[in-house]
């Protein structure tokens, strides 16, 4: 059974169709790259998976459980949506770190808030908070930021901020980690450190969906690639095949524009 199964997702903003009949599935431990030009609907698709947008049609299943069904309002209740979001993590293009918290606090804030909902929180308060804090510290270490945990976002470089954001997303142990063009807002010399981190996550078999413009990276890191254009999936398949030997003309055209870069 695939860990993620997306069935016939459709999304329109007013009269504009942004996503049309999007279906794909993803196996546990696999990485999927979504490529396509700006405005092709890639980001909207990620936002639908994270419940930041509500699809007009279709279903989303995780581990066989229906998280979203456009025809069943019961799956769209605010209180439940909040819990369902936790199956997914999202790393934004513009990081969206909380400026008033240190790197470590950014990572531990959400786990702390969630822990408060545990019945034994009051009794084991100290213990739980210490555990969350040391887990956060360990995550920052994995990101190569052990010595930056007390820094505020504005004291960090873009690449460091994005790595904090990745640690923040990982702290909630999502089933599927989503990246929305994680290096697009970075200076070229800083993209390497972020891509390296994502690559190592792939090596550790983290289930991921990565919207990216880095073709070489998509080819090397992803197991599968989806090429989207004008809101539909044009081509989908094994990464090396789609990027090096695309079957569709539109994919070829798109890739040739990126060949130089």
């Amino acid at each position, binding site marked *: 059974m695939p860990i993620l199964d997306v069935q016939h997702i459709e999304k329109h903003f007013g009269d504009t169709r942004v996503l049309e009949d999007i279906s794909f599935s993803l196996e546990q431990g696999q990485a999927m790259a979504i490529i396509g030009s700006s405005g092709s609907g890639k980001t909207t698709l990620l936002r639908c998976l994270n419940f930041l947008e509500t699809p007009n049609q279709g279903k989303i299943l995780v581990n066989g459980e229906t998280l979203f069904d456009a025809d069943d309002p019961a799956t769209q209740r605010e209180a439940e949506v*909040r819990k369902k979001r936790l199956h997914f993590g999202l790393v934004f293009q513009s990081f*969206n770190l909380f400026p*008033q918290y240190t790197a470590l606090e950014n990572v531990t804030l*959400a786990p702390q808030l969630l822990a408060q909902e545990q019945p034994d929180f009051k009794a084991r308060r100290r213990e739980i908070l210490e555990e969350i804090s040391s887990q956060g510290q360990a995550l920052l270490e994995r990101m190569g930021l052990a010595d930056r945990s007390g820094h505020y*976002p504005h004291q960090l470089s873009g690449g460091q901020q994005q790595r904090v954001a990745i640690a923040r997303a990982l702290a909630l142990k999502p089933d599927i980690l989503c990246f929305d063009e994680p290096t697009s807002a970075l200076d070229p010399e800083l993209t390497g450190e972020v891509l390296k981190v994502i690559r190592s996550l792939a090596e550790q078999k983290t289930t991921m969906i990565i919207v990216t413009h880095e073709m070489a990276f998509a080819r090397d890191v992803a197991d599968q690639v989806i090429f989207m254009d004008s809101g539909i999936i044009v081509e989908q398949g094994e990464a090396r095949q789609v990027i090096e030997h695309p079957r569709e003309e539109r994919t070829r055209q798109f890739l040739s524009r990126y060949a130089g870069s």
Partner: protein
Amino acid sequence: MLLSVSLTLLEGLVVTLQLFALTLLFALPLGLIISFGSMSRCTPLRAVVRTIVWVIRGTPLMLQILVVFYGPGLMFDLPLLPRFTAAVVTFVINYACYFSEIFRGGIQGVPLGQQEAGLVLGMTKRQIFFKVTLLQVIKRIVPPMGNEFITLVKDTALVRTISVYEIIWMGESYIKKGMIWPLFYTAVFYLVVNGILTLLFGWFEKKLDYFK
């Protein structure tokens, strides 16, 4: 002479400061509520709230004081509010509208991405407001609020039209005795109060300087 004038003016200053403090106490929370109304997704509610804000901000405070105090008696033969109460009511309404616009600017100035980051991390709307947005809003509104507070201190002088004996009234009463300097001497009191406010706001701004 200086001592007795100072004491009389201090008496007026107490009234000025009471009005100042009570206005803040009620106008700050009311302003927050109004700002939510003016950002509401419900169009009629938003229209009503924004119209009220437009009327209050678009008419002189002086006129509003007269309307609130004399209005009930002139239009409806109702008993008047006590003078000081009428002054507080007018100032609270007036300043809540100004504050609401500052709050609105502060809240809308926080990037949407902050809220989305909170949502994706499974936070409730409440948690996002208190743990993520609020401090960023406060940081944004401290400078304009400092301005409003200082303006408020000086605006309190308007309530002498309905015979609330604040510090300017006290200063003016000496003119009838042929003494002009007490009126100008009131400036010292205003400067001291606003000096303290300026220092407080400067300190607070510095406290929030640790993030950007």
